[in-house]
């Protein structure tokens, strides 16, 4: 599970508990101008994940870490698909973050209303 907050102009993602270990990452900071949007998407866990490097993939149990698909780098940290949120980025190391959060609706609202309006 990840905790997502907005601190000034920055989106801060912190992995909680053992997810730090599985994902090999404890914290991500993304400037809000590089955040394009957030979406509740339980169905995304059924999509092909691509090649894991580095991270942990126990199909049906846990997807955590960095995956490469179609030339894009995607960060996953999901156990419970019903709480999965997709955060689309631009000009960042990751093309998107797919995170399990405690309250998907609140997280999506927070990000959608904090991000810069599209040009």
């Amino acid at each position, binding site marked *: 599970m990840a905790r997502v907050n907005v601190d000034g102009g920055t989106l801060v993602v912190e992995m909680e508990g053992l997810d730090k270990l599985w994902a090999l990452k404890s914290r991500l900071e993304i400037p809000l101008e590089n955040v394009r*949007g957030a979406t509740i998407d339980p169905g995304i866990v059924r999509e092909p994940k691509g090649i894991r490097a580095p991270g942990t993939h126990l199909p049906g149990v846990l997807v955590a870490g960095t995956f490469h698909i179609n030339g894009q780098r995607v960060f996953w940290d999901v156990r419970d698909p019903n709480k999965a949120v*997709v955060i689309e980025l631009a000009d960042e190391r990751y*093309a998107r973050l797919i995170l399990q959060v405690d309250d998907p609706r609140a997280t999506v609202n927070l990000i959608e209303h904090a991000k810069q309006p*599209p040009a």
Partner: protein
Amino acid sequence: MIRMGRPRGFDEAEAVRSAATLFARRGYDGISVDDLVSHLGVHRNSLYKTFGSKRGLYLRALRWHLEHQVAPLLDAIRQAPDAATALHRSLDAQAAGADIGLLLMAVADRAPSDPDVAAEVERALADFDQAITQALTGGSPPPSPQAPAGDRPPPAEALAPALTATVLGLHLRGRVGAPAAEAVAALAGRLDRH
């Protein structure tokens, strides 16, 4: 690996049109990303890459709807020769080649909780008010206030929001098959007496 120039592999305008139809029928929360992927013929990755989020796509679809599906109805109302014709035309979206389904849905579904949707909806309702005002005044400027205030009918601009609400309400009633023609005829009759 250079993939910047790679085509998206789907028709973006067509995806926005189809999304407008889906959201109009089932509302924002009634459409999942799975639904969008299967109905729009767009891969999930492309969907996120193009629109940023489901809400990004919804806003694009709403703006497209207002510009291409609602605008023809407003034109038909503006061009009406009198108030009665304007009211009859406003109820027959199909005849104008128009559709206000997503607007009606957005007013109740998303506008109360999404400021960007609320702003789009408010602009659309103001356009309705303006079109109805124009139909009521026949495009002429409001008469100069010669008569004492008590004797004058309410100016068209003051009446327009109530008529906009009536038009939207009759569209909603029409969804359950309630006939609007008689109500419109009665209302038009009252208006013409002023």
